[in-house]
């Protein structure tokens, strides 16, 4: 039923091919999971992809069309998504407008909201995991680090989310974090879309803390109760949070509501950080310009 015509990518645990679903002629991507590499049987990332994509059906989340075993390999048949936001940001020949950015953020947050209302954390949101369909629709992809919301006493690893998009509570080694970590990532992506360069590009995990707090201010117990509890807190350089004026200058094209939207997602204290519903219902999406029609975005 499925062909593998061209290899388009290779990761640690999978090789991705372009192909066709014979019965419908639909273009597909086949993610072939390598099984020999992992001495403990099937790779955890593969198990997570299978587990969560089986449960999620949403226009802004990549569709898992089928799964099959062949020659001892596990094959995920996914919808074909030719581009991603990282490519769009990097390609200087592509001009995009604030309306385009708003459309991409709206679709991204709808996909993230659907995961969160199904109590699933993505834990690796970044521009190249936000894929674009031929119709310009954003699809959240790569659930290799996803997991369900933890039960209350469960300990979570803080070693998740690609560094530049990692929330401050993760940088501090938090073990009981929430879906707020995905919202932080979305905030950094929003900043990057406006700047067209990475917003918080730390060289390494320690530098990431430095870069984050230099840009957004070092949190204190006043605005983030018990942040000083984290052992990594004591060695911190103290930076003042940027004034509104400084933010205006930094994000020259952003409206006041866009800045508030950005600050809501990049709120240091995860308990106070906006959740997906607050983001989607924010004034940023209600004011002009309206989000572009995805199909019209070049």
């Amino acid at each position: 039923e499925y062909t593998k015509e061209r290899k388009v990518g290779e990761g640690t645990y999978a090789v991705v091919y372009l192909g066709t679903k014979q019965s419908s002629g639909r273009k597909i991507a086949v993610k072939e999971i390598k099984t020999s590499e992992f001495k403990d049987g099937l790779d955890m990332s593969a198990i997570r992809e299978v587990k969560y994509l089986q449960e999620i059906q949403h226009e802004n989340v990549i569709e898992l069309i089928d799964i099959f075993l062949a020659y001892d390999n596990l094959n995920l048949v996914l919808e074909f998504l030719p581009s991603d936001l990282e490519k769009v940001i990097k390609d200087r020949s592509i001009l995009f407008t604030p309306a385009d950015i708003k459309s991409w953020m709206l679709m991204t947050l709808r996909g993230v909201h659907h995961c969160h209302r199904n109590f699933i954390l993505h834990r690796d949101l970044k521009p190249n995991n936000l894929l674009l369909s031929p119709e310009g629709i954003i699809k959240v992809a790569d659930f290799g680090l996803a997991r369900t919301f933890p039960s209350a006493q469960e300990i979570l690893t803080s070693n998740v989310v690609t560094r530049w998009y990692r929330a401050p509570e993760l940088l501090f080694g938090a073990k009981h974090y929430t879906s707020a970590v995905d919202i932080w990532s979305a905030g950094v992506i929003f900043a990057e879309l406006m700047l067209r360069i990475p917003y918080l590009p730390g060289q390494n995990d320690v530098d990431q803390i430095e870069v984050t707090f230099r840009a957004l201010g070092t949190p204190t117990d006043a605005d983030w109760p018990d942040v000083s509890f984290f052992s990594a807190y004591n060695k911190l350089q103290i930076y003042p949070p940027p004034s509104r004026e400084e933010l205006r200058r930094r994000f020259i094209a952003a409206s006041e509501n866009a800045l508030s939207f950005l600050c809501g997602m990049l709120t240091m204290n995860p308990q106070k950080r906006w959740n997906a519903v607050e983001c989607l219902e924010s004034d940023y999406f209600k004011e002009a310009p309206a989000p572009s029609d995805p199909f019209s975005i070049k």
Partner: protein
Amino acid sequence: FRHSSQYRFWSFTPEQLEQRRIEVNAQAVQSIEQDLRNFIDARSTELNEEEIKTIENRAVPVNMEEELKLVNLYAKKVQTIAQRLNLPTEIVATSITFFRRFYLENSVMKIEPKAIVLTTIFLACKSENYFIGIDSFCEKTRGDKEQVLKYEFPLLESLKFSLLSHHPYRPLHGFFLDIQAVLHGKVDLSYMGHIYDRCKKRITDALLTDAVYFYSPPQITLAVLMLEDEALTTRYLELKFHGNDTNQGNAEDEASRGNGNVTIQLDKLMKIVTNCSKLIE
């Protein structure tokens, strides 16, 4: 829940479930009888009359009921081994779930239960983010590494790749909260705590029955609550879904019941819950 793979792939009517088990058994019987014929034909010269007679009398495939008994016996072993490994309740439940679903797709005559028990626990741990390396897992369970890994793919395939299980434990916590809201001030909290623990145990036992295929997790939870304290559960459901309580509460009560435009008919719900509790009993 209706979007979940648990509902889409693993919920049946009793008739469908029985039909499925009959088919799985029939397929195995057919292939075994074929194998036996081939075996005897290939040795027609060697085997004497009596030996052939013995084979035909002894090598008799098990029927569907016998299969089910064997599967249920081993499902309890899965529970025992998983609990002995001190795995969290949810992971014990997922192990049992994986094991029982596997035998809705395979016959014990094709893959004997003993061979798959450890693989179901191993995959449940991985799937629930409770990763145990194969070496330490086999050390703890005295399992054979190759065998545990060998069945991981067949198990995953038989599960139709549906790994996310909704168990009745979180609904129990949810009802524990909502009962406090709806019956506010009318329930003894230490008594509720006592019930809660007993219900958790009953839920784990309920996962060994076919209730998991016929009812949704919250329905199983309500059935277990009904078994633990019928009066309390009935009162809660009446207040929650009927709202025509004798001492009609004020607006605040109405709000706490979250009635809104609830579309659940109490009598229908009570029938479902009662049937479910009978099955679990």
